[in-house]
């Protein structure tokens, strides 16, 4: 006799499925819905891929996307090595450990809009310590007028805010390496570089993958800090993707194009995370001859 599969299990999954529906699937499908229709005075009609085509050829989006990539990759290139370097330099025992970890974690505890405000004041030429000092050194610095200064200020703020996260993750990875590895390396006559290259780095691979993914996603979605600091200016020099999107969706109420934009945005992050993840996973395997 054929045994009927027991469907009772679905009942147990149902509450979670319901929550996920309301928290993720329905909002996402609404966006998909908007991206394929045009809303005019309360009536909707299907427009197919028109918004996507429009968005993909939109020069504003291209500009923002380009700035976004340059920004995110620069941030990763600075934050990852710097975070690892800080983790390596941190003390390993004694009261200094707690002190350093608390100091390191401070930027992470500050709300994002406050971070923006801090740097906005910090960088001002008249009353800000940093802005005033830089100008005092004879360097012409004004983040509200000069696009390069603005971009650099946003970058320094990003690095200041998020490198500690990478450092903390890397530190956790380092502390998890058993002493025997370091002892064996000493017996084997390994140089400090070899210890880093063959013990510490491979053992940190897991945490660094997480750090890389988190930092990529977050920096790619940067909004509040940059918005509070520069408002996207001067011009559009620090207008990143999420700001363009917000302007379009909330400022101009172009729901269709904004929805199409959101989906493209989402897919970019998804694809890059997948690429990073696979690359890092394969780095650990497959290399055998």
């Amino acid at each position, binding site marked *: 006799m054929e045994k009927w599969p027991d469907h009772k299990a679905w009942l147990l999954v149902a509450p979670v499925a319901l929550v996920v529906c309301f928290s993720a699937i329905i909002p996402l499908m609404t966006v998909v819905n908007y991206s394929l229709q045009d809303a005019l005075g309360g009536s909707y009609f299907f427009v197919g891929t028109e918004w996507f085509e429009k968005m993909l050829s939109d020069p504003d989006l291209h500009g923002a996307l380009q700035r976004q990539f340059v920004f995110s990759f620069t941030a990763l290139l600075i934050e990852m090595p710097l975070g690892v370097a800080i983790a390596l330099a941190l003390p390993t025992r004694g009261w200094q450990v707690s002190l350093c970890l608390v100091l390191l974690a401070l930027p992470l505890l500050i709300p994002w809009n406050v971070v923006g405000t801090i740097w906005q004041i910090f960088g001002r030429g008249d009353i800000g310590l940093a802005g005033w000092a830089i100008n005092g050194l004879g360097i012409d610095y004004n983040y509200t007028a000069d696009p390069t200064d603005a971009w650099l200020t946003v970058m320094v703020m990003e690095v200041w805010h998020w490198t500690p996260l990478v450092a903390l993750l890397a530190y956790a990875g380092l502390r998890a390496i*058993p002493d*025997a*590895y370091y*002892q*064996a390396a*000493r*017996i*084997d*006559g*390994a*140089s400090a570089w*070899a210890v880093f290259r*063959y*013990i510490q780095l*491979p*053992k940190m691979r897991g945490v660094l993958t997480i750090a890389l993914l988190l930092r990529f996603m977050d920096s790619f979605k940067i909004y509040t800090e940059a918005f509070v600091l520069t408002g996207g200016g001067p011009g559009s020099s620090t207008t990143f993707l999420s700001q363009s999107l917000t302007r379009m969706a909330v400022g101009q109420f172009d729901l269709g194009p904004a929805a199409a934009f959101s989906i493209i945005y989402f897919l970019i992050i998804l694809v890059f995370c997948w690429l990073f993840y696979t690359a890092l996973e394969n780095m*650990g*395997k497959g*290399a*055998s*001859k």
Partner: protein
Amino acid sequence: MARIDLDQIAHSYMGHPDPGEPAHWALQEMQHVWEDGGAYALLGPSGCGKTTLLNVISGLLQPTRGRVLFDGQDVTALPPQQRNIAQVFQFPVIYDTMTVADNLAFPLKNRKFDRDYVRRRAQEVAEMLELDQDMGRRAEQLTADAKQKISLGRGLVRSDVAAILFDEPLTVIDPQMKWQLRRKLKQIHEASELTLVYVTHDQNEALTFADKVVVMYEGQVVQVGTPQELFETPSHTFVGYFIGSPGMNLLDCALERGEAVVDGARVGLTEAAATRAHNATGKLQLGIRPEFVRFDPQGREGHPVKVEAVDDLGNYQILTVRLGGNTLKVKMPEDSEPPGDEGTVSFPAEWTKLYADGRLVG
């Protein structure tokens, strides 16, 4: 290959040059020589200082006091890199991202040996340990057994070392493989005449591997000897108890006219022992191995005892008997008649040892 001298070595983890109380010393002051080419087992319970001693020899630890000499040369201040010594740890340490071949070659590469020589040597060691099939694979992908073989291999690959130190290297290996690897190490020792120090808390491992066994207890070396010496003449009650299965019987006793008195039972000692014992002070104990106690079910000679338990272990029996207030273990020969509830035990004088405060006096 070298002779290693430990000259008045003592170590404390308290970080103070003189922590005072003996309990604060991980290693009590000791004088010890590892002869060139010896196969030593360093045996002792967990926490007795075996690993500390090993780390002092390799240079991973700076001893609080004393000197370490390799062939008469003081190396106390040198780090392990410069000491020319190999050490294998309890848990496999491998370089995950390297191939097996690169792992084996690593200690030689770091010392800038000629490339051809490095490759040849790595290959030799791989063949010795039967790793040659896996040379091109990443070390990470191998089983725990194979990983530990890589660790062993990295220890063996340097042919110029003063000694190879093994810190319970076969803990993670399964029993069948353990036996093979131990024999392999023994063969390697015979072929190469390297000085090997093998730390273990397993007496069988120690006794089968080593020419000489060094027994440690509470931070001290309590006896150095061949397996036979340790068995027949333990110089410390700990050795008597720790080595042998079951361990030595230890009975509180008193001395009276050249004889030991255990709960009223008089036990004869050899004349030499009786003479030496004459001056002994402290807590006296009589020690005799279960193998040497004579049990007579007919009760013809010796002291009457009650049989409390009989453990049949296949080819021999262990009796637990009560003599006055003490219990004794007796190992019965294979073809002995089955014991009743009562009998007598006697103690051959040449196997009856006397200990004062744990130390052998006669």
